[in-house]
């Protein structure tokens, strides 16, 4: 009795669902596509949008520093701009950025200044194509504030986003951080070639010191090493050639990068259990003197400057750039760099008042961030620097002095899917569950499939 009743019910529901589905899908599809056309072009420098009611800034939950620094600006140096257009904060979790921004933009409600996903803001990305991303080089040149942007930051952004579209609130360069004391004790010189690096690591291992540490659990620290080997070997345009289809990851000189990483892991230089080591543990191994080197970005300075975490002392922490690969096309001067999570200005709401905000931030942020939070940004420092650690000062100086082009990281130009595959498969590569050839072949296949 009950059985027959439920049988009859199911087809009826299915029919009703199908009806709703087709209706909803049609209206959804139409609404999503149609409204974007009117966005102002991202090419113009003049404030061509309409000012919003509030200067709404959406930052990552994981980055409370940026929120508090911008609030500080609104109370001090940018008080006038804040008077004209008050700042208002919104938050989004980093993992949720792409979804949230896509949704908000589809509802024509993107905040005036917002965090975004790298792939979204490129000219052919969803936000870029919809004309929602303001060209900030044009904007700052228009207001006379372009000189506040470091050339290195401009170069990095050009490489990764295809234009200067993000406020460079952070600017990180990457390289090897090493324990000066251990190097001295073992009589090791700072390596400048890959061979030197391997020799140094070997010496350290013989002496019973763990040569390097890496946060293998996160994947990207591993692919960074591979990527840098490729940049040094093939040249700074190595990954652009992959994007443009001029080269394949399965080409011999690219596979050599994966092989170099696999070899490094196989010799045990990273220590036991590196594939499940997270960022904090890895940094800790270096800062407690267990490991002699670590490849990391300059964000590590936060931990280096923390006396509670840094037990080897700031004076024992040194930095050297990723060494050259013998016979390679790249140069040791080409620093790998990134500008943190992108923070774009909406072209739609880029009116005169927002323009004032942008120039005020560009002028004052660099000094404030360095003095207040020890954060190195891609803006020039226009105030006297008072109380920062020698380590931070060293890197800050290095960054300000970079005039040659910077390079990106291995997966920077990949589509999001291949990007994720590159780091997830890194564990398989470094534990010998996947060969260098297979790793690159799988990745190339994914890149081709997502063109």
């Amino acid at each position, binding site marked *: 009795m*009950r059985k027959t009743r439920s049988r009859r019910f199911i087809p009826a529901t299915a029919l009703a*669902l199908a009806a*709703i*589905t*087709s209706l*909803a*899908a049609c209206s*959804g*599809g139409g609404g*999503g*596509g*149609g409204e*974007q056309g009117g966005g102002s072009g991202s090419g113009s420098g003049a404030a061509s949008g309409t000012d919003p009611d509030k200067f709404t800034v959406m930052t990552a939950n994981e980055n409370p520093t940026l929120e508090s620094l911008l609030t500080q600006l609104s109370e001090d140096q940018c008080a006038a701009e804040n008077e004209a257009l008050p700042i208002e904060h919104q938050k989004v979790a980093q993992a*949720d950025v*792409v*979804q949230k921004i*896509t*949704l908000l*933009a*589809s509802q024509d409600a993107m905040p005036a200044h917002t965090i975004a*996903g790298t792939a*979204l803001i490129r000219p052919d990305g*969803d*936000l870029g*194509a*919809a004309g929602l991303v303001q060209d900030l080089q044009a904007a700052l040149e228009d207001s006379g504030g372009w000189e506040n942007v470091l050339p290195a930051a401009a170069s990095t952004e050009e490489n990764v986003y295809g234009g200067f579209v993000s406020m460079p609130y952070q600017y990180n360069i990457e390289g090897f951080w090493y324990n000066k004391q251990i190097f001295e004790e073992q009589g090791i010189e700072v390596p400048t070639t890959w061979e030197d690096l391997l020799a140094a690591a070997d010496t350290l291992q013989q002496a019973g010191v763990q040569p390097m540490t890496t946060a293998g*659990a996160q*994947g990207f620290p591993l692919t960074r090493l591979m990527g840098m080997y490729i940049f040094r070997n093939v040249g700074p345009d190595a990954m652009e050639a992959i994007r443009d289809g001029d080269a394949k990851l399965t080409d011999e000189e690219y596979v050599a990068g994966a092989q170099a990483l696999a070899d490094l892991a196989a010799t045990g230089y990273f*220590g*036991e*259990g*590196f*594939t*499940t*080591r997270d960022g904090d*543990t890895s940094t800790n*191994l270096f800062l407690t003197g*267990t490991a002699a080197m670590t490849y990391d970005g300059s964000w590590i300075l936060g931990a280096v400057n923390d006396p509670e975490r840094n037990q080897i002392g700031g004076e024992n922490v040194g930095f050297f750039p990723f060494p050259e690969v013998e016979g390679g096309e790249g140069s040791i001067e080409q620093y790998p760099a990134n500008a943190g999570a992108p923070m774009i200005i909406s072209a739609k709401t880029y009116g005169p008042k927002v323009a004032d905000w942008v120039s005020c931030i560009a002028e004052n942020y660099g000094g404030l961030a360095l003095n207040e939070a020890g954060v190195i940004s891609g803006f020039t420092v226009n105030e006297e620097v008072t109380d920062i650690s020698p380590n931070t000062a060293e890197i800050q100086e290095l960054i300000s002095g970079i005039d040659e082009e910077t390079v990106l990281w291995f997966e920077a130009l990949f*589509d*999001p*899917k291949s990007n*994720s*595959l590159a780091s*997830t*498969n890194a*564990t*398989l590569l470094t*534990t010998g*569950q*996947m060969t260098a050839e297979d790793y690159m072949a799988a990745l190339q296949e994914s890149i081709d499939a997502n063109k």
Partner: protein
Amino acid sequence: MQSIFGDRKTIFILLGPALLLYTLLKVAPVAWSFGLSFFEGNTLRGFEWVGVDNFATFLNDDAALQAVWVSVVFAVAATVGQVTLGYLLALLYVFVLRKGSSLVRTIVFFPTILPTVAVALLFKSFVAVGDNQGPVNDIINFFGGESVEVLASTYGTMLTAIVMTLWSSMGFYAVLLYAGLLDIPEDVVESARIDGASGLRLVRHIILPLSLPILLSSIIFSFNSTLKVFDSLLALNNGGPGTSTSPLTLFMYRTAFEYAEYGYGSTIALVLTLLCLVFTLAVFRSTRRKVED
């Protein structure tokens, strides 16, 4: 009698709010999303009709098929484990500890409410190798074995994830089943005891049949939640090594929200829902004779 239990107005008042909310805010959005299985794109880019292309893609997508396998293996293992452990605990509460079970119940329930991130961190430290080697490898070393990097292998990761899930959910199922066991009239149990049924026999012939409805509901609920396992596999090893322990939900989440391919993401969700439906119907079918008294 019939008129009292068949009063239309009462049924409407009691059921109306649930049905209305559920239909408007769950069924309709889900239907909207499922409709998008036949489209390509996202809310910003707009949607383009692609027919059954997404389904064809799914069937040829190695990553998708692997994710189905991961979800099913996890769901079967976790369901068998957590319902069994939960039921044993519930029996312990009701028939052994009796009125003194409150504290034990509370303590065993507690892992359920701990954030998955913290639990995953804990289990990672259990199986760790290297400088901070965890107790698991200490034990292996003690018996002369070499340290194993558990999370570098697919089996190790799955096993850890399942143990972790059982640890944190057995208390939940215990409480769920406990509430069901409490409703078994005491005199039924007593009279069976007087008839001489005891221990296992009592459980098998009296308790089990009487608690079958709630047991069945638990199994269905367990399948439906473990097939949708998400945060524990993500937090434990990010679905790795490689993507070998990425379940369907993680694959769907990445596709829809990280790669902004909402259409294909909806297709994956639809497949997942069908999978849940198949499992639920299978559980219903296999026990139909027993519930329909």
